């Protein structure tokens, strides 16, 4: 992914180009660096998920060069898949990756604030990924405690293989990730607050920027609390404290007696205080981009624009208050469960407002069904199908039945993983001309890519709802060798699981189409016209993303975004001064 960056550099000196790209503090290179991190993570994470699916469907299948996949290895696969995907793909790519690449152009800034700090954040994140990948190779293998690492399982090496060095590396990696993420968020907040160009009042700020802003506002406190929790867990592991383990805990026939009597629930609180804002950090940029792209190709202003800003902020603010809905059956006080359920259901209201606005924006607009538009619409569809199940699991009594079943897996894979990934694809197809020096991705390949991805996304994750309604738990290495009643209950799931496995493989293989499309576009010489989507936002201004030099005009914003004529034929970009014919309606 960082190939385009070097192709693009207009630097006079071609020598040491690579070294300069590595150590440069340009937001473009940093953004491409973040994208490279998440590309590595997504490839490995997908392969891990394939192994999981294969083992779940054919427990006796032996991996070449490795042999049978043992139950603990299955849990290690689950843990690493979740950690890679959630931390290093869904958080890094939309927020800091595309944030660095597009955000400055969109607010008419020429760069991010604090370029060195920005680069530092990227390299810390990269180090976090490297440390995490090392966990595969240490004795005992990678951790098995899941991406949430609940203690006491994650506290003692006695609790299972991978809970020794592997868990330590996991902690170190996530600590690095948290520091890097917080640094990136601080840079992004400062950029949005201070570097907006003249005339970029906050009602002219595109919704994408609102998404990034809210995500960064969530990232700063969330990652800090995560860091504190990791420090405490490290003390429990190595310094003999007892923040998260109770008095007289017997793990593996060994008594662990410490001073003080902690509680695992403390970790749950601290972790989910980070963990829930985390999922909004992953999805908010996608929401903003979807709004802008749908409006752009419907040639209409985003329906209820100010309400969309308000809902973005409301989702962010409420996102801080709802972490308890991950703990309904974890030993939470039932009254607290009620309160957290109320707050969680409240988030459904701004989310519904967003869906209504998306539907209304493209309603009978005869939109141009380009690939980015298709992916934006796919985002809406997946967001709906995932969000409706979110309303169900937000009710404690129903969560009691559905908690930790495949229903939850389907829920967050649809609303977070798939929706966010569709947002990423939308961003790639939409902004590719800006990223790759005016080249365009092939529309025909893109449409094939979209329809196949949508089909297989639903093929893979929709059946998980039914499998979960039939009470199949997560984290089960295999559905064979259970005791008779469990076998009677879960044995019938093998067919459904086979179906899901097939979908997962097809979903992964479809992405080669996307890869081919990228390579083909990078090799093609033809260059698209400036502003090929006739967009109205600042990043498409003819001088927006060029390397700054003194003879370029300083960007000035005169318009709200999405300024189209009623029939959608003409438009006024944000950087065009208002004509007397159509005075600006603020």
């Amino acid at each position, binding site marked *: 992914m960082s190939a385009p960056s070097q192709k693009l550099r207009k630097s006079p000196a071609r020598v040491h180009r690579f070294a300069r790209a590595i150590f440069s503090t340009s937001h473009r290179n940093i953004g491409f660096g973040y994208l490279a991190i998440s590309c590595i993570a997504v490839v490995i994470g997908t392969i891990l998920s394939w192994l999981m699916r294969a083992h779940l469907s054919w427990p006796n299948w032996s991996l070449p060069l490795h042999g049978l996949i043992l139950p603990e290895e299955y849990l290690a696969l689950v843990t690493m898949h979740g950690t890679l995907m959630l931390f290093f793909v869904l958080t890094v790519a939309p927020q800091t990756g595309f944030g660095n690449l597009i955000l400055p152009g969109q607010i008419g800034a020429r760069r991010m604030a604090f370029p060195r700090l920005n680069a530092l954040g990227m390299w810390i994140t990269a180090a976090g990924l490297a440390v995490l990948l090392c966990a595969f190779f240490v004795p005992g293998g990678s951790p098995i405690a899941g991406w949430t690492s609940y203690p006491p399982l994650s506290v003692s090496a006695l609790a299972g293989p991978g809970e020794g060095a592997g868990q330590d590396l996991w902690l170190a990696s996530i600590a690095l990730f948290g520091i890097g993420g917080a640094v990136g968020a601080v840079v992004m907040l400062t950029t949005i607050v201070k570097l907006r160009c003249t005339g970029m009042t906050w009602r002219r700020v595109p919704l994408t920027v609102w998404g990034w802003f809210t995500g960064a506002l969530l990232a700063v406190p969330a990652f800090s609390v995560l860091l504190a929790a990791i420090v405490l867990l490290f003390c429990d592991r190595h310094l003999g404290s007892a923040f998260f383990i109770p008095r007289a805990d017997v793990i593996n026939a060994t008594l662990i007696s410490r001073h003080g009597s902690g509680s695992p629930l403390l970790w749950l609180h601290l972790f989910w205080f980070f963990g829930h804002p985390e999922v909004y950090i992953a999805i908010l940029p996608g929401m903003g981009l979807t709004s802008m792209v749908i409006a752009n190709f419907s040639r209409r202003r985003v329906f209820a624009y100010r309400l969309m800003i308000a809902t973005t902020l409301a989702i962010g603010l409420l996102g801080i208050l709802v972490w308890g809905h991950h703990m309904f059956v974890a030993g939470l006080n039932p009254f607290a469960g009620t309160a957290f359920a109320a707050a969680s259901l409240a988030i459904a209201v701004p989310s519904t407002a967003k869906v*209504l606005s998306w539907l209304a924006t493209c309603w009978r607009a005869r939109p141009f069904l380009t690939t980015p538009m298709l992916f934006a619409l796919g985002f809406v569809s997946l967001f709906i199908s995932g969000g409706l199940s979110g309303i169900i699991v937000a*009710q404690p009594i129903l969560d009691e039945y559905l908690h930790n079943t495949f229903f939850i897996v389907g829920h967050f894979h649809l609303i977070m993983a798939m929706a966010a990934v569709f947002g990423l694809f939308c961003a790639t197809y939409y902004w590719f001309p800006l990223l790759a020096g005016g080249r365009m991705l092939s529309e025909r390949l893109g449409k094939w890519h979209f329809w196949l991805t949508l089909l297989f996304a639903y093929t893979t994750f929709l059946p998980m709802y039914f499998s979960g309604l039939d009470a199949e738990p997560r984290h089960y290495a295999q559905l064979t060798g259970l005791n008779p009643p469990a076998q009677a209950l*879960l044995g019938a799931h093998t067919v459904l699981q086979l179906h899901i496995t097939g979908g997962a493989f097809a979903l992964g293989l479809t992405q080669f189409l996307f890869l081919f499309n990228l390579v083909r576009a990078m090799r093609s010489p033809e260059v698209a016209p400036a502003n090929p989507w006739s967009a109205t936002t600042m990043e498409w201004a003819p001088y927006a993303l060029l390397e700054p030099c003194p003879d370029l005009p300083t960007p000035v914003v005169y318009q709200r975004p999405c300024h189209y004529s009623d029939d959608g034929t003409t438009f006024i970009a944000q950087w065009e001064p208002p004509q007397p014919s159509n005075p600006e309606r603020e």
Partner: protein
Amino acid sequence: MQAIPPALRFWHMPVDGSWSGHALDSHLLLNLWIALGLFTLANILLVVGVVSRRRAHRPLHKLTLEYLPLTAFAAVFLFLGARANSLWATQRYTGAAPDALQVEITGLQFAWYFRYPGADATFGRTRNELVSAAEGNPVGLDPTDPHGTDDIVRSQLVLPADREVDLTLRAVDVIHGFAIPEMRLKQNAVPGLTQHIHFTPTRPGDYAILCTQVCGLGHYRMQAMLRVLPAAQFDQWLRQQEQAQPQGNQR
């Protein structure tokens, strides 16, 4: 398998064998139907709005298209939330009835153990320091406590039908998830905490007890069996167990 109501079968849900399960099922089914309806409606609107050939020129009306539907949806969510919370309150806000059958459940890697108070209807003292499955004392009974001598520790949960049960959940090592899907029951057993949950099985039969919180490499095979017997058979079973109990639990 017993006869499953068609609605449950449509949604692939297992049979419900508990007294409180019916209310939960009906609420869950209501939710699912609403979700399915909205999902279909929204996707139809999406497709129709996108493929319709004529472009609507009249300005969209914000009140009718945004605020009214939003209020309606908020009302729906409020209704569902209130309904769910009333169920939640009946199950969780109050403890079990005083005459409920007392059973203590202990989870450890990777098995469940079920303890009945025995003839004196009192649980003996337990101490984690004494836990040792190898020495046949998996729940850590304290031999010095006379109450403990007649406690019955089994690896299978046997319950009478139509009588409320007060389960006391403990975990010895790590967090385990105690779940009986067919009883619509789930609660994590957290080391260091003692938690209560109560329910009333109604339908005799054998049911699966699963662990639903990842607890180590044996997580997937950490199951036990719940056998619900008619009241008379259960009393008989309990009597047998008490007679089979060697006097003095120190083995």
